[in-house]
């Protein structure tokens, strides 16, 4: 209870789902063989934290920001450039963190302060404009960021796959640097999600929800909404940048496609909405569903597309082509805003499982 900040999942099915997801993630190196499974698991961890930080903005303050991948990218690039420039040592990792996190927070502060000047309705548009300018900037400053190619780098000795920490023991598993990196990603992501849970359940988080419901009223009650919103922005940016750092450490690479592109922003939006806005737990569910679908559904679509083209159906092969999976996701997105605006978590909390809570809605 303490760990969850007094905000348990509040649904038996949801609890079960979360436990299964977390156990499966924790045991991935031993349960599922192969590099792909481990990659997917690491990506789920990173995105769960990233999406949870976005949920702090979207779900708890109700402001739509399109600059979240920018902060994610700042984290990724900071660590990548540091490790690329200074060589694979821990001082470089520390430099990346020390430069990246404050930079993200400062930029969030600047955007927050600037958008105070204009109507709240403009916030989404301004963040979109700033994020797209940043994206162009990152691809143009190729001497620093490697342009479209991005930056590949080496990790410190300890985290490399070649480093064997525990050689094959009784059970036939080998613990190497890669698996250590995975657990680093897993543990830090989990810590960040727990910290976010703490934030949203603190008095500060309650004020954010009050602002979401009725900003005018929150202001009338004497809360400095400007301060709260900007603070929430900076917090979310910090977590997003940290998630970016983890992502770069895992991929040993930072580039526009993996850390800055607008499609990642859309992915994050989809994950929040599918999982359930304003719940934090939704981030874990949304990220898991989305990334599993991204990695495994696509091959299924490929099979379906082939079958359709062999059957000589018009149009269907094109629509079912694996590259078109975003189309179906987009439809799912619209459908979920229509029919389950509260997402999977909201559904589980108030729809099925928990009858007592369902009665009140």
């Amino acid at each position, binding site marked *: 209870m303490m760990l969850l900040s007094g905000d348990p999942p509040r649904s038996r099915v949801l609890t079960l789902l979360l436990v299964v997801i977390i156990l499966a993630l924790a045991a991935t190196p031993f349960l599922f063989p192969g590099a792909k499974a481990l990659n997917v698991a690491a990506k789920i961890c990173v995105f769960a934290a990233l999406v949870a930080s976005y949920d702090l903005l*979207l779900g708890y303050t*109700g402001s*739509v920001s399109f600059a979240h991948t920018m902060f994610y990218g700042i984290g990724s690039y900071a660590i990548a450039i540091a490790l690329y420039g200074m060589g694979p040592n821990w001082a470089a990792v520390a430099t990346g963190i020390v430069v990246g996190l404050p930079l993200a927070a400062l930029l969030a502060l600047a955007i927050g302060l*600037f958008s105070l*000047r*204009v*109507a709240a*309705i*403009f916030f*989404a*548009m*301004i963040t*979109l*404009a*700033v994020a*797209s*300018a940043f994206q*162009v*900037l990152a691809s*143009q400053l190729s001497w620093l960021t490697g342009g479209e190619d991005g930056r590949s780098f080496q990790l410190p000795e300890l985290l490399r796959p070649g480093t064997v920490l525990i050689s094959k023991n009784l059970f036939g598993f080998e613990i190497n640097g890669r698996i250590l990196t995975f657990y680093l990603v897993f543990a830090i992501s989990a810590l960040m999600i727990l910290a976010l849970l703490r934030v949203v359940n603190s008095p500060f988080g309650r004020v954010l929800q009050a602002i979401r419901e009725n900003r005018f009223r929150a202001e009338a009650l004497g809360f400095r909404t400007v301060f709260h919103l900007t603070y929430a922005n900076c917090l979310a940016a910090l977590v997003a940048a940290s998630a970016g750092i983890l992502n770069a450490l895992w991929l040993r690479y930072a580039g526009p496609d993996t850390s800055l592109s*607008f499609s990642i922003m*859309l992915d994050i*939006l989809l994950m929040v*909405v599918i999982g359930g806005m304003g719940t934090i737990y939704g981030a874990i569910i949304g990220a898991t569903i989305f990334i599993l679908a991204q990695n495994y559904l696509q091959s299924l679509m490929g099979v379906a597309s082939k079958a359709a083209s062999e059957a000589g159906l018009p*149009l269907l092969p*094109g*629509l079912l*082509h694996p*590259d*078109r999976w*975003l*189309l179906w*996701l*987009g*439809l799912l*997105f*619209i459908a979920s*805003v*229509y029919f389950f*605006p509260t997402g999977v978590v909201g559904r589980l909390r108030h729809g099925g499982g928990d009858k007592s809570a369902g009665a009140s809605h």
Partner: protein
Amino acid sequence: MTELAANDPLPKPKRDLAPILLPVALALAMIPLVGSPSTWLTLTAASLAMGMMIFIMASGLTLVFGLMDVLNFGHGAFIAVGAYVATLVLAPFAASMQADSLWMNLAVLAPAALLSMAVSGALGLVVERVLILPVYGQHLKQILMTTGGLIVAEQTLYALWGPQIIPMPLPTSLRGSFILGDVAIAKYRVLAMLIGLAVFIAIQLVLNRTKLGLLIRAGVENREMVEALGYRIRRLFLGVFMTGSALAGLGGVMWALYREQVHASMSDDLTVLIFIVVIIGGLGSIGGCFIGAILVAMVANYGGFLVPKLALVSNILLMVAILMWRPRGLYAVTSR
């Protein structure tokens, strides 16, 4: 205060000239910086043409924002759809596009543009009914819904036309430039300027000289009051939305010809530009949108010529500067 007699005409509202002078001043200030007058003229013509195209795409959006307080993040989809639809007409008639006769070229271009507008407008009808109607008054859901719509539209275009870039060459008679002394002005830019001006004048006439326009302007200023007077503002809004979508489609065709290529991702880059224009101009203000579009294009052209490195962030800087001066955009027409 001066006393007004009962049958005196109402005092004219004060004209706010400062925003109009802004692009003029900017252009004049650039003469010494650019140096050669002929380059300056070419750049200015380029900015005006580009500004007109952006204006055509953004005008619908600013009215939709202003009139119904709807945040449409899917406006870019209409632009891309318009451009793709035009290829349907232009590709089969490639021969008459190659012919060196202005009238034959226009005989293909005009139907292509009209078809694009019709399809985008019809799509606007569907989008308004299906995506926006259920979420009136809820900004968060509007953004989510229309973003979803944008994804679906883009992916459908990819599925139908394939992910490759489709070339869209200019017709022969619109290639090349008018040469006046040592000033070269591309012919297509002149056409774009003419169309943009025509659209601007048409919108201004409808807004300021017709009852429909009166209702739209009144709706932008105070929606509830128009409704209370018994007008069905939802229907009015549907009309504005469809017109805006059709104009976006037209803008898409023009932009595709300008770039001589069509790609579904063109909507992404343009969406950002259009948002900046709408913010700079002020919600719901056509005049502001017009000036904003020209300013954005000027900054892009002059900036690209003088300091290419700065061109990346120049639009953001412009937006920051304008909003520091007038926080609600050049012309604040809404009561919100």
